[in-house]
């Protein structure tokens, strides 16, 4: 079975073997602004390498946290194209930008084709733009389990802005809202069954709606449907704006960014931003704990045939799980 996210199952040697970047240099090179060191640190986080804990302590982010905006929406709605446009706009404003773009891995082989980067090629060679493609590696939620940790690394590296793109969402991939400060939900005119059929949850997580591909027929109808749907939603202090864009032509991006900034001001002034940041740390800790526990239990069952046999015999997953966790390390 796929095991690519196991905690440190390969020897560290294999990971660094022959590399011109070695473990001892990582921290120094990271601090000196070396892209490869940042990229390697993200890989360590991705494969849940135990050395990440040390790294996390030494590379504690300082200064102003980057603004994190997340783009989510069905496959092919234009998320990558929008991200590309936002990066261009931010570069014009002299912000440095990091992009974390997620695509799914095959649940059968663990392999993936990570293709979001194709739409962002005009930023290649811009030293103030860092683009990293991440496989979700079996993590449900539309992002990689490593996304949050990667954001902290980008913060420590000194990026002004972070833009994240989720996998094309199906139904329950709502994690982006827990990770980004501002969540942009991208819709298009060719939605098939229309706005009503959008899976529950997606509408609730939106801080901003973008109806992209406004050059296509039916765009006005999507906006109208969305508006009437939102009028039924419970009134919070933030009313998600609905914006039309033609990402392919860079139309509407200035307005989109203004909306993001307005939302950030709202987070700031309402105190909601701080609340979310705290909640995020708590959630992440719980999630990482769950991941560690899961891995420990898998390994215990694999290593202990007697225990495994007893589990099959008694059919008591709860009891067995508690027993394994009670054993401690």
């Amino acid at each position, binding site marked *: 079975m*796929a*095991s*690519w996210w*196991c905690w440190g*199952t*390969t*020897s560290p040697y*294999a*990971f660094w*073997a*022959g*590399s*011109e*970047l070695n473990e001892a240099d990582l921290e120094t090179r990271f601090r000196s602004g070396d*892209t*490869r060191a940042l*990229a*390697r640190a*993200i*890989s360590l986080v991705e*494969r849940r390498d135990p050395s990440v804990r040390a790294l996390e302590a030494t590379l504690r982010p300082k200064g102003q946290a980057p603004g994190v905006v997340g783009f989510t929406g069905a496959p092919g709605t234009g998320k990558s194209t929008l991200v590309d446009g936002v990066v261009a706009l931010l570069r014009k404003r002299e912000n440095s930008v990091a992009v974390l773009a997620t695509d799914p*891995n*095959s649940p059968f*082989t*663990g*392999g*993936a*084709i*990570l*293709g979001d*980067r*194709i739409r962002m*090629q005009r930023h*290649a*060679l811009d030293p103030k733009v*860092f*683009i*990293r*493609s991440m*496989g979700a*590696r079996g993590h449900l939620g539309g992002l990689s389990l490593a996304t949050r940790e990667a954001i902290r690394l980008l913060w420590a590296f000194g990026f002004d802005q972070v833009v994240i793109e989720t996998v094309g969402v199906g139904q329950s991939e709502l994690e982006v809202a827990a990770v980004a400060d501002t969540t942009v939900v991208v819709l298009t005119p060719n939605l098939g069954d229309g706005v009503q059929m959008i899976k529950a949850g997606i509408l609730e997580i939106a801080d901003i709606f973008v109806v992209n591909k406004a050059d296509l027929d039916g765009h006005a109808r999507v906006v109208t449907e969305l508006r009437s749907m939102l009028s039924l939603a419970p009134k919070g202090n933030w009313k998600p704006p609905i914006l039309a864009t033609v990402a392919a032509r860079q139309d509407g991006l200035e307005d989109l960014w203004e909306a993001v900034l307005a939302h950030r001001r709202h987070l700031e002034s309402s105190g909601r931003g701080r609340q979310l940041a705290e909640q995020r740390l708590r959630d992440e800790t719980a999630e990482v704990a769950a991941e560690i526990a899961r891995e420990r239990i898998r390994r215990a069952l694999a290593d202990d045939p007697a225990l495994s046999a007893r589990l099959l015999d008694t059919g008591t997953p709860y009891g067995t799980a508690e027993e394994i966790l009670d054993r401690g390390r």
Partner: protein
Amino acid sequence: MRPVRIIVAKVGLDGHDRGVKVVARALRDAGYEVIYTGLRQTPEMVVDAALQEDAQVIGLSIHSGAHMTLFPAVVQELKRRKATDIVVFGGGIIPDDDVAALKKQGVEQLFTPGTPLQEIVDWLRKRFPEESR
């Protein structure tokens, strides 16, 4: 385990992307993480992407006849960026004599038309026995 991450790119002015897409899919199905950068890449772009993506491998696809300049240019750029541990391999329309010459210049392996996809996968598995799955 560390999944092998592979940058796959078409370099130069060359629109033949059928082969590279077939190969990308085969590598995905073999459990590799493939980052496809698309058409018309320069050697600098490819190497920069490999560094940002922390890829161990760069796979180039060339059908334009410019392989004798572009492959070595990528190898040189890796030297310049101090990342010679990144493996360069590839495929496309490359005459046998050129294959031999390119291997001397640091391209580890080349696959020409008609190569069964399994052969490419087998080569990677051998090349990365620890990391491959």
